[in-house]
Structure formats: C-alpha cells, structure tokens
C-alpha cells in the first residue's frame, strides 16, 4: 500500500520535473545580453519560408550543423510555407531581434512581396537585417520527357500561336518563376497559364512529375536530378552562361531570347539586432556557407555558392528592389 503511494509520488514528481525542463527551455526568452550570445542550450530558430525539400530548405539544412558548431548551440530549421514565402517572412520579421530567430531569405519573393500593396505585407526591406548571401540559382524551363517540344523555340512559338494552351508551375504569385513567365510573355508574346504552388518548389515538382502541369518553371537545382533521371526535358537556362551542372542545356540567349532570371538566396535576421550579436551570426553564417564540405554538397545538388557578406547582401537587395519595381506591374493582379 505505502509502496504504491511512494511509487505514485515518484511518478508524479518526475512528471513535474520533466515539465519543469520544458519550461526552462523557453523561459529565458528576454534580456538577451549580447556578450553571452548565444546562451548554451537555447536553440536558434532558422525559419524557411518554403516547404521542405525545396532548394531553400536543402541549403538551410546543409549549413545548419556548421552553424551549430560555430555558435555552440542548437539550430532548428522550421518550415513555415505558404503565400509564396510571405507567411515565413512575416514570422521572421515579427520575431524578437535577439539573434535567436534567423531566416532564409530568397529574392525576388522577399523583395517583391512588400512592394505590392494588395498583399498587405507587414514588413518592408528595412524589417530585415541581411546576414549573408549564399547562392544564385538561375531559372530553367523544362517540359515532360514525352513532350513534342524539343527546343525552347518550338515551345515558345507553340504557346505564342495558342496563348494559355500550356500550364506552367510557379512557387507562388510574384515569386521568381512568376516573374520569369511574365518576362517571357513581355518579350516574346508567349503566354503560359501559370499555376501557383504557393508552398514551394517541391509541390511544383511533384505536380510536374504527376503530369498535372505541362511546363516546370524552376531553378537549376530543382531539375538537376530530374534531368539526369530523364524525368524532365530541360529546354533552357535563364543565365548568362550555361549552368555547370547542366552543361548540355543552352541558355535562353543562345536560343535567341535575351532574358535572364533566377533566385538569390541568403540569410537574414529581423532588423534591430545588437551589433555584436549580428557580428557573431554573420561570421558563423560565412563560415557555414564557405565550408568546403557544404560547398561541395551544394555543388552536387547543382547549386553554385556565391557568398556576399551582410553589407554587400543588403546592397544587392536594394538593387534588386529597384529592378523589380520596374517589372512588378507584369505580375500584379489586374481586375
């Protein structure tokens, strides 16, 4: 009898103790004195604004362990997909600027979403503190392997003759893929019917593999593996030079269309970080991005590392904002 009671008491006590642990982990939220950043045992959230499995997510998960080693604490990748990145960016900029929340930021989605008032974004460029740019990933256009279109010209001519006869994927309204489609329409007159997979590239790719969309508009890294397996016929790369991982695919320019487009990805924090916290994060992110093993793994996935530090990334961002402001009307809803 009494043995039972003791047992029960122990069980209850251990439960409460466990509860206590859970509470402690989150309790030390406030008063982030910068000198001791990051506190041991307090994890850093890395918000990815697109769903798992896409290039943004993959890159974040690759740098995560190096970041952990550099910062000496846990770094947790959290996917907050939806609305072409806006949901994740809202969460990032709404977080306390104490260094314990950082996020992956990709342009044009992060640059453009605050520019269109219809989206009601809660943030602007000034809400972010850029920490470092990791890659530029050119846009590509691919069709089903059994498609009748063997070249970019054939595809674009066919669509020009019959507008909206083919569906094309994007990763959301006003994302890089949507802009690329708009640019193509503007300069060639070929109008695709866009289908917005607002959670990211993995949803778009899945739908393409199931033949639910005709044309996959994506980035080099998304089609790298698909092209090797013969599951997608890549027709053109929207970069100045051919992509090293797809050496046999011609650029748009080679096919006679002078168009470039792509996604630039990096990492940012909410604006207002204490200076030494920012320095620490920037240094750790640089180490992680430039880590030879990470660079090699990125290369295997078809991603070319092109690091910029926080200040340069900020300038690059401002430049992108100017560029995209000009083409924004192309992708704005007209009604």
């Amino acid at each position, binding site marked *: 009898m009494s043995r*039972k*009671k003791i*047992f*029960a008491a122990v*069980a*209850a006590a251990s*439960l409460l103790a*466990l*509860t206590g642990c*859970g*509470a402690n*982990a*989150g309790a030390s939220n406030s008063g982030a004195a910068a000198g001791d950043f990051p506190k041991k045992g307090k994890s850093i959230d890395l918000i990815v604004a697109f*769903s*798992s*499995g896409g290039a943004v997510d*993959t890159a974040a*998960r*690759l740098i*995560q*362990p190096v970041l*952990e080693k550099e910062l000496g604490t*846990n770094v*947790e*990748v959290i*996917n*907050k997909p*939806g*609305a*072409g990145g*806006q*949901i994740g960016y*809202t*969460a990032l900029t*709404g977080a306390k600027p104490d260094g314990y929340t950082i996020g992956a930021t990709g342009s044009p989605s992060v640059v453009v*979403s605050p520019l269109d008032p*219809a*989206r*009601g974004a*809660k943030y602007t460029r000034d809400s972010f503190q850029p920490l470092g740019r990791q890659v530029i990933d050119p846009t590509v256009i691919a069709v089903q392997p059994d498609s009748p279109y063997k070249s970019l010209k054939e595809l674009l001519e066919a669509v020009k003759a019959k507008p909206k006869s083919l569906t094309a994927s994007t990763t959301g*309204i006003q994302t890089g893929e949507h802009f690329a489609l708009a640019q193509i329409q503007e300069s060639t007159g070929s109008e695709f*019917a866009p*289908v*917005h997979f*607002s*959670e990211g590239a*993995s*949803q778009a*790719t*899945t*739908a393409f*593999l*199931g*033949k*639910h*969309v005709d044309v996959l508009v994506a980035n080099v890294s998304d089609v790298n*593996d698909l092209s090797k*397996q013969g599951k997608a016929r890549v027709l053109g790369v929207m970069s100045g030079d051919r992509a090293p991982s797809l050496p046999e695919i011609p650029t748009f320019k080679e096919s006679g269309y002078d168009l470039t487009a792509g996604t630039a990805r990096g990492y940012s924090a909410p604006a207002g970080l204490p200076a030494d916290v920012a320095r620490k994060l920037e240094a750790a992110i640089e180490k992680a991005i430039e880590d030879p093993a990470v660079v090699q*793994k990125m290369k295997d*996935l078809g991603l070319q590392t092109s690091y910029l530090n926080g200040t340069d990334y900020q300038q690059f961002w401002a430049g992108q904002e100017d560029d995209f402001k000009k083409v924004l009307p192309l992708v704005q809803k007209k009604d």
Partner: protein
Amino acid sequence: METLNELLGGFATAMTWQNLLFAFLGCLLGTIIGVLPGVGPVAGVALLIPLTLNLDPAGSIIMLCAIFYGTQYGGTITSVLLNTPGEASSAITTIDGYAMTKMGRAGAALTLAAVGSFIGGTIATVGLVAAAKPLGEMGLLVGPPEFFALMVVGISLLVALAGKSMVKALISGALGLLISMVGIDPVAGAPRFTFGIDNLMDGVSFVAVIVGVFGLSEILSFRRNEPTPVVHAPGFRQLFPSRTEWRRSAPAMARGTGVGFGLGLIPGMTGSVSSLLSYATEKRFSRFRHELGKGAVEGVAGPETANNAHANAALIPLFTLGIPASPTIAVLMGAFLQQGLTPGPSLFTDHSEIAWAIIASLFIGNVLLLLLNVPLVGLWTSILRVPTPILTAVILVFMVIGAYTINFSVFDVYVMIGFGLLGLALRNLDIPLAPMVLTLVLGPLMERSLRESLEISQGDFTVFTSRPISAVLIGIGLLIICSPLLKLRKPKALMEDPEA
C-alpha cells in the same frame, strides 16, 4: 527474391549491437521527449539530431528513425492519460483515449495504441519493401483536383461525426472552416480575419485549439453540484486489453492501416489528416460506432494505427522520388543530406547497403517500440494514482505549458483558453466538437488544392468531374453525404482504400 536478399543484408548491417543500442536509446529518448508537453515529433527529432551527427550514416539514421517512432508514441501517452495531445496527429486520440482512462482502461488504451502503431508501421514498411516504386508513382496520380476530391470525401465524413443533429454538426464544421481561414491568404498573400493582430498572421495553432476545445473545456464542464469524476489507475491485471477489446480493435487497426497507408503515399498530406479520417471512418463504419466518444477502443486503435502507417508510408515518396511528404520526413531528409546521401531513386543504386539497412531499421524500430513501451505502460499509468484533484491541477499545468511551448508564445495560451471557453459553450449547446476539428485540419488543404486545380483548368469547374480518379472520389463523397438520407447500406468496400 533479390529484394529479400538485400533486405536480409540490411538486417545484417542494422543488427550490429551498436546499431541496436542506438535504436534502443533513440526510442527511449524519443518517448521521453514525446511525453513533454508541446514537444512534438518534429521538434523532438530536431533537438536530438546533434546526438546522431557523429555516428556513421547507417547508425545515425537508424537512431533518428527510432527517435521519430518514440516521439510519436510519447505524444499518445499524454493524449490518453492527461487529455493533452503531444502533437497534432494524436489529437483525436484524446476523445476516446481519455474516456477510456476515466473508465480505468488507460493501460489497455496505451497497449492497444502501441500494438496498433506496430502493426500500421510494419505493414507500411512491408509496402515500402515490396512495391516502393509503383506505390510512389501511384501517389503522383493525385494532382490538385484529386487532392481536392479526397478532401471532399474527408469533409463528407462529417456526417458520420454528427451525433444526433446534422444541423449542429454542420454548424460545428462551418466554424472549423471559418477558423482555418484566419491568417495570411495562402495563395495571394493578403491577411484574412487577423484584426490587425500580428500573432494571427500565421493562423491559430492547431494544437492550442485542440487542447482548449477537448481538454480544457472538459475540465471546465465539471459542475459544482456533481461529484468530481474519479480517474482510476488500473491494477496490474487491467493493464492489458481484454479479449473483447482485442477482438474489437482488430478491424479498427485494419481500417486504420488502409487509411494511413493510402494517405501517407500522397505528398502534402499530413499525419493528422490520417488519424482524423481514421476516426471518422470508425464513426461511420465500426460495428460499435455508437460507443465512440464514450471510451471505445476503436477510437484509439484506429487513429493510432493510421498515423503510424501514414508516417512509414510517407517514406515511400522520399525514397522513390526524393519528395519529403511531411515535416518530420523533412528532418529525416536533412539527416540524409548531412550524411552525403541524396534521397531519391539514386539512393538504392548508389548506397543500396545503407538504404536497405535503414529499411531494416524501420522494422527493428517498430519492434523496439513495442518491446519498450508495453512493459512501461504500468509505469506511465501509475501517474493516475495521484489523487484526482491534484491530477486535474497537473493536467491544467500541462495544458498551459503545452500551449506555450508550441511557439514559446503566451498568445497560444490565450488561444487555448479562448477555445476552452468556446468548447464549453458548444458542449452546453450539445454541438459536437469533432466536426470542427475535422474541418479545421482539412480546410487549408482543401482551399489550396481547389485554387491550384482551378488554375490548372483556368477556371473550369469540370476539372473535378472530367478526371476519372477525382470523379470517383467526388461520387464517393456524395454517396456518404446522402447515405443517411437514403438509408443505404454502408459502402464498406469503397472506404477501405480512399485512393481506389
């Protein structure tokens, strides 16, 4: 035969004593983490990843899989004993699981949940071994229109959850859809129903809603003039399910496996959809459907089997196509990448030894989960020896902390309390709560697939009826909705596999 050879080779790799130890440790740590309020499988696996980084690829991924199983089961323990789900996919288990606890059948509920998880997980893994490639491609057949049609079938099961009044079920269901609209428009990006509150931008947290609606409102509904319900801790003999309970669970587990496995193959489907639809299926097709909600074993065995079958089936798209079908799988995928393995078909050609070792470890993880947790059921249920008033206080503490730790935000605690009050009001009005939870989970998925479908068809609604799979699914949905009116016999064969 070659497959069997390779699988045996995988077992040989996975069964070294180190790997078994890693799997055991992973399972144990995972369970403990899962019992902690608010730490679901995703956070749990992420927290424990550093432990696995220095191991060799096979060992590290084996341990991760075991952690993953453990956290899932840990969430079930709190659902059943404390009426507080550790994670979304065992949320629905609270209804009958906690009712069973109040009847002194907590031990049976936990044992059945472990056995169901084992069965669901093992059968799904057999599917992975036997027919990964065709099954993976079958998942691809489900495009946005089919996905939407599947959601229609899901919503149609609302009629099963209705109880006495269909109108009240519809009110509850509409409320759930309304709540699911809160937050940033998932396609166009404009905020909806956020009333300028930043915390609502991301929508309301599902776990906070569930804890409030089911857990808190239940505590609040104790009347002062009624005797406090006493929760009995089961004696040793009562820890195990009775023969009747076993017999009743078997068909529920079979249905749960079918639902979870079918839905798990579809990229973008979450485990909570599987457990909810399994519950609704029980409500509709079980012989004991009238007992559901009052502590029926089917309400535990079905959903718990379904969410594990789902979790393992979700590995099929990862292995065959490189598509992570759920957030937890994404964490696993991250671990693959860390180890220099690219998930996808090339995994079996480039690193076949590791691929098969992982599959073997899935089987081992399932067995360990059973071996570890069934003996521990006695330990877990001893929590209930704490006198009821104190235990109720402990449960309240758990609920608050559980809600807080979702995002480390007090706002979620308010959400939990608010929904507790809403739940209380609905209980008093005799409006069933389950339809609301069903539509809350299905709503966003339904909206997204509807909009994607209409973009594909450029606004033409016939896209749902002109494609064979979606037409059949919509037909099934209509049939289920109409069946109470027409007094049709249950279309059981149709329901076994929602993908058929």
